[in-house]
């Protein structure tokens, strides 16, 4: 009799093999395992699934599950690499926007699971008021942990919106649009998606990378020459996109 470890390794190999030789009862487990992945990723990537249809989607998930193992007992966190997988999936070559739609859907999922922040706009404003004026540009901010940026050359937000349950408007999507700079975050407990101006996007992304306000302002002005820093800062503190000063 093999050791339990050898036995589990063999069972796992048989389960993954899935050729005609697979025992009928091992095949039941194989079906359950793959249908769990299809179901879980189908919920997270619901718009991707609508765009390609269930048979295509399920085949893509099966290929993904074989190529990129689940490494965690919590199925909710499986699928983070699915957008990258779709980007290089040969059968999706004619759907250049698909991976970006998947990135948006993963960002929505991740935003919903992110940590809650204790700080308030008032506490951040108080902390800023205590910063000497000449040190203002040296400040670094922590963004709310739910913040996720999605940048796409395709109109992914519009694609996502017209595929939401209950959408009753015009489904037409123009491909002739400016790139999407999106910020996905939680506000008041719900996940929201904002389309950012190039300046806001440059400012927040640079701050999110850990750079100071001076560098972030340079990036914002480069992206949007008439960028208004004070307006953006006030709004982003009030709506808690900017959560805390780093080092606080």
């Amino acid at each position: 009799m093999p050791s339990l470890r050898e036995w589990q390794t063999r069972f796992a190999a048989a389960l993954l093999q899935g050729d005609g030789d697979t025992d009928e009862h091992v095949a039941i487990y194989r079906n359950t395992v793959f249908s769990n992945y299809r179901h879980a990723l189908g919920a997270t990537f619901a718009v991707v699934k609508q765009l390609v249809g269930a048979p295509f989607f399920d085949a893509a998930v099966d290929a993904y599950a074989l190529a990129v193992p689940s490494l965690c007992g919590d199925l909710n966190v499986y699928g983070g690499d699915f957008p990258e997988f779709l980007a290089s999936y040969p059968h999706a070559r004619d759907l250049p926007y698909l991976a970006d739609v998947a990135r948006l859907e993963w960002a929505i999922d991740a935003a919903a699971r992110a940590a809650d922040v204790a700080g308030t706009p008032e506490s951040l404003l108080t902390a800023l008021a205590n910063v000497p004026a000449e040190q203002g540009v040296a400040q670094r901010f922590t963004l709310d942990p739910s913040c996720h940026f999605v940048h796409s050359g395709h109109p992914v937000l519009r694609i996502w919106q017209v595929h939401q349950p209950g959408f009753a408007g015009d489904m037409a999507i123009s491909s002739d649009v400016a790139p999407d700079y999106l910020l996905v975050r939680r506000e008041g407990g719900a996940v929201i998606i904002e389309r950012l101006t190039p300046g806001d996007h440059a400012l927040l992304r640079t701050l999110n990378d850990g750079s100071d306000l001076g560098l972030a302002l340079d990036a914002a002005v480069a992206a949007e020459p008439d960028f208004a820093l004070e307006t953006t800062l006030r709004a982003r503190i009030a709506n808690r996109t900017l959560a805390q000063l780093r080092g606080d």
Partner: protein
Amino acid sequence: MNRHLPNSAGLGLRAPHVSHVLAAHPSVPWFEVHSENYFADGGPALAALDRIRTDYPISLHGVGLSLGSTDALDTAHIAKLSRLVDRIQPTQVSEHLCWSSVNGRHFNDLLPLPYTREALDHVCARVSAVQDCLGREILVENVSSYLTFPESTMLEFEFVVEVAVRSGCGLLIDVNNIYVNARNHGGDADAYLAAIPPALVAEIHLAGFDASGPCLIDTHGAPVAPEVWSLYERALRRFGAVPTLIEWDTHIPEFAVLQREAATAQSYLEAELAVAA
């Protein structure tokens, strides 16, 4: 410290029904949730459970700890479970007597073990380690299976009972799984019940199976079958009025359907209490 769920019929709470429970505050004696669905660092799902736990006793039921795996115990997983236990203060914590990962790859499914002395020693050590980490007793649940293994040297119920006796955990007896396995493998469900010491049983699960394939599949996607209600009645005769949960995980129906299933279980519990009195 003794922790007991109410001796009544609770419901498995799944995402589609959370907003209804928060808004309508239905009369349900207790809820069970899948632990992993609340492993997030924060966010609305966890906030909803924070509110629900103030009004209902909660049981945390794990599906991903992989107790029977020969990989090292996943300390990150246990840390998240421990964090959730601290936050929710559940009445009960349970896991499955199965394995779901090996060599780092998770199958995210409840895979059956061969019932050998080696597997028994291994699972007992793992259950003890988990209980030490959590600082509390857990319940382990018998799983459904579609395979038996020639390597097995013990019957399933012998294995299940030994795990509880040796590791000091309690048992969550899934009556549907006993029925499914007896049908799939030709066992005797009543002999199974008779082999379980009543004092070990802290919770019962009921769910529906699918009979359309080559064997019964434990889909949690249908009403409890009449034969399983009958076996449940005999389980209560043996174990007494044990807290009982209705589970429904695929093709989840509207909440009222779950409540009707729970009401049926409740009527069996009350009949048992009346007989015992």
